[in-house]
C-alpha cells in the first residue's frame, strides 16, 4: 500500500441552481485504497462523488466551483475534456443499470467506444478479463450472448463493475453499489472491492456503516453538505472527534 495521493479536492462548492449542496469540501484520496463516504441522506455524498468524474456536468443547473486534481492535473481546467476523464474515472451506480444488451455487449461497450481493441479477439480478451476481475466469469461464461438484464441483481451490479473495469480506469467511483442487493450478493461485491483495490483507487458511498468499516481504509463523514470529519476508518468508528460523527455512527441521527 502506497501513501501516494491520487485525488486532491480543494474548496469544492456545488450548487443546484441557487441551492448550495456542498460547502468548501477539501480532502485527499489515496491511491489504490478504498475511501468511503458516509452521512445521512441528502448530505451531498452522491453530489461529491459525481464531482470526481464530472457527471454533475450533465445535470441541468448544476455548478461546481473549486479544484479537483487527479495526479496533479485539475480536471476542471478549461482544456480538460470530461468525456476523456470519465474513461479514467469509472462509475458504478446505486441501482444496477446494465444496458438492455447481451452480457458481452455490455462489457464491450466501453472498449469499443474508446477503441481499446483493434480486433474481435482482443475485444473478447478484454471482456473476459474484465469479467474475470469482477469475479463473474465462472457464472456467465456459457451465456455471454444472453441479455444482461436477465441476470440477478447482484450479478447485474457485478456486470456494471466489469463494464467499468473494461475501460481500464484508474479510479472507480461507487454510489451505494450494494443498496439494491441482498446480503449474499453484497458480500460478493465487498469481496470484489477488496480485490480491486490492489489495482484501482476506489471511492464508495455507503449507507451501511458496517460496510464502510469492513471495506475502507479511510472514511469521510458528510453532514448537510459539509465534510465534517475525514480520517482513518478505524479512527472514525472508534474515536470520532466530532459530536455529529459520533451521533451518526451511534445511530442517534440519520
Amino acid at each position, binding site marked *: 500500500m502506497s501513501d501516494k495521493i491520487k485525488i486532491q479536492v480543494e474548496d469544492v462548492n456545488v450548487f443546484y441552481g441557487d441551492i448550495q449542496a456542498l460547502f468548501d469540501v477539501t480532502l485527499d484520496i489515496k491511491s489504490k485504497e478504498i475511501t468511503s463516504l458516509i452521512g445521512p441522506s441528502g448530505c451531498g455524498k452522491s453530489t461529491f462523488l459525481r464531482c470526481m468524474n464530472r457527471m454533475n456536468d450533465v445535470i441541468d443547473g448544476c455548478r461546481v466551483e473549486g479544484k479537483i486534481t487527479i495526479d496533479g492535473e485539475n480536471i476542471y481546467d478549461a482544456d480538460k475534456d470530461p468525456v476523456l476523464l470519465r474513461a479514467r474515472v469509472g462509475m458504478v451506480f446505486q441501482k444496477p443499470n446494465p444496458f*438492455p444488451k447481451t452480457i458481452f455487449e455490455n462489457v464491450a*461497450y466501453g472498449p469499443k467506444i474508446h477503441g481499446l481493441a483493434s480486433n474481435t479477439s482482443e475485444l473478447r480478451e478484454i471482456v473476459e478479463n474484465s469479467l474475470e476481475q469482477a469475479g463473474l466469469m465462472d457464472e456467465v461464461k456459457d451465456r455471454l450472448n444472453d441479455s444482461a438484464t436477465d441476470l440477478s441483481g447482484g450479478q447485474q451490479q457485478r456486470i456494471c463493475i466489469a*463494464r467499468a473495469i473494461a475501460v481500464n480506469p484508474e479510479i472507480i467511483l461507487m454510489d451505494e453499489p450494494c443498496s439494491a442487493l441482498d446480503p449474499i450478493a453484497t458480500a460478493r461485491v465487498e469481496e470484489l472491492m477488496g480485490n480491486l483495490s490492489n489495482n484501482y483507487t476506489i471511492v464508495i458511498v455507503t449507507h451501511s456503516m458496517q460496510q464502510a468499516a469492513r471495506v475502507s481504509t479511510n472514511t469521510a463523514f458528510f453532514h448537510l453538505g459539509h465534510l465534517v470529519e475525514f480520517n482513518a476508518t478505524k479512527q472514525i468508528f472508534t474515536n470520532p472527534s466530532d459530536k455529529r460523527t459520533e451521533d451518526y455512527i451511534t445511530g442517534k441521527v440519520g
Partner: protein
Amino acid sequence: MDIFDITIVILAISTASYFFAVKKITKISNTNDIRPDSILSYYGKIAAIWAFVPAFSLLLFYSFLSPIFSEMVFIEKLSKIFPEHTESQLDLAFAQLQNVANGILENPDININRLAVELKSWDETSLAVRSWVVFMLLAITALFSYSRLTPKFKARKTVESFLQKLFLGAAVVAILITIAIVASLLFEALRFFEVYNIFEFLFGTHWSPNIAIRDDQVGSSGSFGMLPVLSGTLLIALIAMMVALPIGIFSAIYMTEFASKGVRDFIKPTLEILAGIPTVVYGFFAALMAAPFFRSLGLSLGMDVSSESALAAGAVMGIMIIPFISSLSDDVMNSVPQSLKDGSIGLGATKAETVINVVLPAALPGLVGAFLLAVSRAIGETMIVVMAAGHAANLTANPLEAVTTVTVQIVSLLTGDTVFDSPKTLSAFALGITLFVVTLLLNIGALTVSRKLSEKYD
C-alpha cells in the same frame, strides 16, 4: 315534455331518492342500534341508481324506437295510397309527409293532408305516452328501492357491481360501433364485387370509374383496377415518410438529449403549432406553393415535373407529420431511463454515442410503433392530396409525375351526383375497405414489431 325536461325530472327524483335512502337507513340503524353493512352514502347511491337507470334507459329506448316505428306504420299507409311507388320513392314520400305534418311544406293532395294530420296526432300522442311511461317507471323503481332498502343490504357491493357493468357496457359499445362500421363498409363492398370481379379490382392496372350514371346516358362502362390508385397512395406516403422520419426523429433527439430547458420550452410548443394547423391549410400550401416551387425547380434543372406531382403532395404531407413523429419519439426517448444514459456517459461515451448506442436501441420498439402509426396517417390523409395530388390514375414510381390516391378517389366518387347503387359509388366502399385493411395490417405490424423488439430489450 322534451327529452331534456324529462331528464331533469329523472335527475331530481334520483337526487331525492339519494337523500331519502340515507335518511331511512340512518333512522333504522339508530333506532335498532345496528351497524349498516356499508357507508351510508352507498345506500344513497344505490337508491339514486335504481331511480335513474331504468327510467333513463327507457327514455332513450323509447325516443330511439318510436320514430322508427311511426315511419314503418306510415310507410305502410303510404304504400296503400301509392301502390306503384318503389321503396326509395316511399321514403321520399314519407319525408314529404313529415314536412307537411310540421307545416313546412304544403301539399294539395287530400290523401296526403289527411295522413299528415294523422301523423301529427300520432307524434303528439307518442310524446305524451313517453312522459307517462317514463314517470311511471321512475315512481315505481324509486318507491320500490326505498321500501326495500335496509341496513343489512350490501349497498357497497351492489354499487361496485353496477359500476363494473357500466364500464363493461362502455367497452362493448365502442367495440360494437367499430364492428358496425366495418360491417357496413364490407357489406357495400360486397355489393360492388357482385357487379365487378374482385380480382380485376385488386390486380387491375387501369382505373377509370367514369360510367353512365343514368341508363339513358352514353359512356364507357368503367374500369376499376385499383393498383394505380393504391400505388399512388403508397408513393405519396413513402415521400412523406422520407421527409418526416429524419426530421421528426432528429428533432426529437435534439430535444430530449441536447437542448437546454429553455430551448426545449421553445421548440416543443412550436412543433405543437405545426400539429395544430388544419390540413386544409397544408392542402393549399401544397397546391399553391409547393407544387409550383417543385415545378420551377424541375424546369431549371431541365426536368419535367408535373404541376400536381407526387413529390409536392408527399413533401407537404411529410411536413404535416413531423410533429406527430417528433412528439411520439420524444415521449418514447424520454421514457428511456436516465440511469441507462448515465451508465453510458459514465463510461466516457459522448452524448451522441449514448443516443446511438443506448437510447435509440432501447427506444426502438416505441419508435417503430410511432413510425407505423405515422404511415397509417399518411395513407389515410385526405385533404392535402385532394388539393395537391392528381386525379388521373398513373401506375408509376416516378415522384415527379402526378398520381392519385385512394382517398382522393373516394372523395371524387362520392361528391357531386351519385346514385347509390351504381358500381361507381359502390367502388368507393371497396376502396374504403382496402384502405382499412392496409392500415389495419400496418397497425398489427406496428404492434407485433414493437412487441418483438421490446422482448429483446426488456
